[in-house]
């Protein structure tokens, strides 16, 4: 049976004091030049999405040093909401049997309309193991 991990995305303003309700969370996986859509979720009143199950490599790959084989699945998480700057987090790591929690801190849009297409992009690089 294939291994799976899971992902939940939480969206907030101001260090978790204000949950963002109704943010659109798009989870994709890049394979070559293609992006495969894994799921689209809307955050609830607590700013959270339900858990998304994602296929992963076998756990053995993370239990000893590997030459090139990557022990986790990388997915991209995009968060959109009309009142905040879009945040894209690339290469979120999903490990077999583990829950990944992606807490996304969102920043309200400035009043300056010229500014509002600015996207924040975060790229997660692998562990140096």
């Amino acid at each position, binding site marked *: 049976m294939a291994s799976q991990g899971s*992902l*939940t995305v*939480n969206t907030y*303003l*101001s*260090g*978790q*004091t*204000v*949950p*963002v*309700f109704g943010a659109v969370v798009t989870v994709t996986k890049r394979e070559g030049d293609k992006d495969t859509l894994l799921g689209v979720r809307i955050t*609830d*009143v*607590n700013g*959270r999405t339900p858990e998304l199950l994602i296929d992963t490599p076998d*756990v053995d790959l*993370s*239990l*000893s*040093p590997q030459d090139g084989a990557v*022990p*986790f699945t990388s997915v991209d998480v995009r968060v959109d909401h*009309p*009142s*905040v700057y879009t*945040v894209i*987090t690339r290469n*979120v*790591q999903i*490990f*077999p*049997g*583990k*829950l*990944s*929690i*992606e*807490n*996304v*801190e969102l*920043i*309200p*849009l*400035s*009043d*300056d309309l010229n*500014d509002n297409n600015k996207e*924040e992009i*975060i*790229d*997660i*690089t692998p*562990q*140096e*193991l």
Partner: protein
Amino acid sequence: MAVIYPTIPQNITVHLGPPDSDAQNVTLPFKEYIKNVASSEIYPTWSEQAIYANIYAQLSFALNRIYTEFYRSQGYNFDITSSTAYDQKFIYGRNIFENIDRIVDDIFDSYIRRIGVIEPLAAKYCNGTTVTCEGLSQWGSENLARQGFNYYDILTYYYGDNIEIVTDVPIRDFIASYPGYPVQRGDSGPDVSVIQTAINRISQNYPAIPKIYPVDGIFGEETENAVRRFQRVFNLTEDGIVGKATWYRIINLYVGILQLSELNSEGQTFLGNAVQYANTLSIGDTGEGVRVIQYFLSVLSAFNNFIPPVSIDGTFGPATENSVRSFQLNNGLPVTGIVDEATWNSMYSAVKGVVESLGIDFNVSLAGYEKYPGTELSTGSRGPSVETLQDYLNVIALSYRGISFVPPTGVYAEQTTRSVTEFQRRFGLPETGVVNEETWNSIGRVYSDLIAEINVKSMQFTGNTIREGDSDYEYPYTNT
């Protein structure tokens, strides 16, 4: 000579590159920093004992940097870097693994030290394959764990026998410390009142968490259900028991929400009249114009970890300049530390965006520091002003032991009279038990100072713990 013992900071400032690089600094809660480092350095699928050992080393390394002021003493304005050539791997905004999240919640207030030495161990570590070092081997620790070594055995294996682990380290400037025992059903007393008060305020922003009425200091079924719901929302073990992890999450969130309300109410002062750019401001300037930009920076810093908070004191000093530079760097403006018209307008737009969206788009209840309601409050009074008064008294009660909690019923009865009298006694006002304008303003100022101090002081190395008898200010205030 007094010895200074290490404490756990509330926040840590991380430079996102090698020390001399032009990178931004980000400030975030210490616990979140460690969760990030642990998730960035090792794999979550490793044995639990290996994970514990690695996190103790990461904690100690970070606390050593902070305690020895390694970077700050060299003139840098950050505590640590995210560069693995110098410090530990940290990626702002990365995902955290749930098992690592739980372990850090458990041990974040601990560190390793050499026996007989005060400072946290500058615990070196490396992967053990492509890099070897004197210190913990990350792959080696996983191997040892699989052979049955526990975390302590692993740590002594790599660091020697003359180490010990210090636990329950005090948290700097924390408004309400964990009582040291898990608070649960059947318990009663002030610790339960704190939990009930805080959860009620949090539930205004998180409507899925039920309110607890009455706030009676008795941990019954209603309180337990609210705690469980809180735990579910915040990815904590859902057991209905307020242990260390749950306690700190509740209090941190409560304080954060109050600080936000405070900023919003100050906005009525700073944003109410037509505020506009008057003249360029820079280090050394003083006055109302400086207060305005300090207010802007305070709001922006509450919503953006790349902008450090500042005191709204009307003096443009190094902290204000640092915050201006951070704002400019974050917004693609020339990094001058000088607030010219372009910088001012950019700040103002950003702040207006925040303040407007809070009220309109987000479910945020804003009960700020209000003006005196115009009539005295006393036994029999009821309504929103009384609720506000009770909120303020409860925050003050968190820090001042001689002041009792008040159930936030909105009705001014015996307990409110008692707490008001205790406040008046403590702050040298006539002990009438009645809230006239002078008492209202005193209560409001103490409340807002507590909230403001927590925010800024947690940035400084030698912060003062807020404890009865300590004061940075002359109380009571004279009315201006």
